[in-house]
């Protein structure tokens, strides 16, 4: 089953931990609102990326990322 990722962008300061853990799914881009912001490269990543996506969520210092089942 694919994964569903939810982002709370109000909390993102562009630390880029997610990008380091799982560049297949996350990128961090410049934003007009100050801090860079995370974006999703895939809305519903395949299950083989589960471990990397979960690490990205777990180690995000601002708890921006939530992972659920699609």
């Amino acid at each position: 089953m694919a994964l569903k990722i939810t982002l709370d962008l109000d909390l993102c300061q562009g630390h880029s931990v997610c990008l380091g853990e799982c560049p297949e799914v996350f990128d961090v881009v410049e934003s007009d609102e100050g801090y860079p912001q995370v974006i999703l490269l895939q809305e519903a990543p395949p299950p083989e990326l589960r471990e990397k996506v979960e690490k990205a969520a777990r180690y995000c210092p601002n708890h921006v990322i939530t992972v659920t089942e699609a």
Partner: protein
Amino acid sequence: MSETASALSDSEKAALKLPPKVSGEKPDSGHMEEFGVNFARFLMRCNAECGELAEYNMAGQQTVLMSGPAAQEAFLKTLDKKLSRAAAYQAMVPVFGEGVIFDAPPERMKTQLKIQVDALRYQNMKAYAAVIAQEVQDWIAGWGDEGEMDFLDEFIQLTLHTACHCLLGADFRYKMTDEFKSLYHDLERGLQAIAFVDPYMQQPIFEARDKARARLQTLISEIIAERRANPEREYGDALETFMSGTYADGSLLSDNEVTGLVIATMFAGHHTSSGTAAWTAVEFARNPQYTGAVLQELEELYARDGELTFENLRDLPQLEAFIEEVLRLHPPLVLLMRRVIEDIDYNGTLIEAGKTVAISTYGSHRNPTYFPDPERFDPQRPKASSADMMWAYIPFGGGPHKCAGNAFALMQLKSIFAALLPKYTFELVDAPETYEDDLSAMVLKPSSPCRLRYRRR
């Protein structure tokens, strides 16, 4: 909560209540005196007497304390656009420098803060983790089998070394630390309470502050010039990030602005880290029953990987829970403030533009609804089990301006204790109740002396 885009009309304002006022106000000085004795306890009294909103008077500056998860969330997140940090922190301007952060126009301030956070991103953090591990090894190399030290003094020194090293690089750290320390000391002394009344008065402490600021800029300009002349070298420190950051038009930060970011980063990260590290050591000495679980997790780490790395430091839940409990009882920043720039209707109560609003981490962390038996040290108590808890447990604030150094701070604390605990045990030297929160400076720390005895395991 009303989410109106425009300011409130007079008739709308007239229909609203005003925040209840805290008793004990004196003519002119208001609550200044009581605040000065122990402001963390004063703020808890405000909340106990008036509830969610409590208005007190700081020599004419009306301040509304907002308490409880809902009000704290409003302060940190939903009301953000109606609140200003810059107006509340003008005393920092001569320390950070003209045109830096709180003195910069909003767009430039945003870019400067972004560049400051860039220095804390993933790639840099790996380099910092190695620097910190090295500094800790150098520090404990001369300890021997046992001894007694003031751990607040020790951690002030250690975190000055790590900060200097991560910010300005190895060359600066090993050649310039002594001069940096004395300049930084003069900058700090320029932030006494009087600076919050008027930071530009004719005062010896302010003259020393301005001289130190100018000298530091000279030193940093020299490194910048040398580095720009040798662009092929890589450093992995924050200065490298600050030097390469650009504004929207592509221009680089000036030497003045780079110096300002270095100073601002020191002020955000140094005493907050040394105070928390000292309290962590004291709590390990005071609560040996919790050491076993932490030690076991560390033994597993060393057996598996042999050494501390950025990656394995992230998977130490027992040590992390211990440090989080230290941050609950001893949050380094007790009081967070903003100036209201547009009238607020908070659930039927008017908080007028021009007033200050504040939240107290210390008070929130001792609210028995969320932290039963709050004075008891218990690393296992839940801290993020619900949305309410997320806004009740706020050692790093929250929302868009959450402390951007939180990951750095936790990494450094874990690195220190992951190195110390397997080698040494800690015991209190003085009676347990004499280790208290000292609130005489802006940042909470353990009272002096903060003596501990260590013995090799």
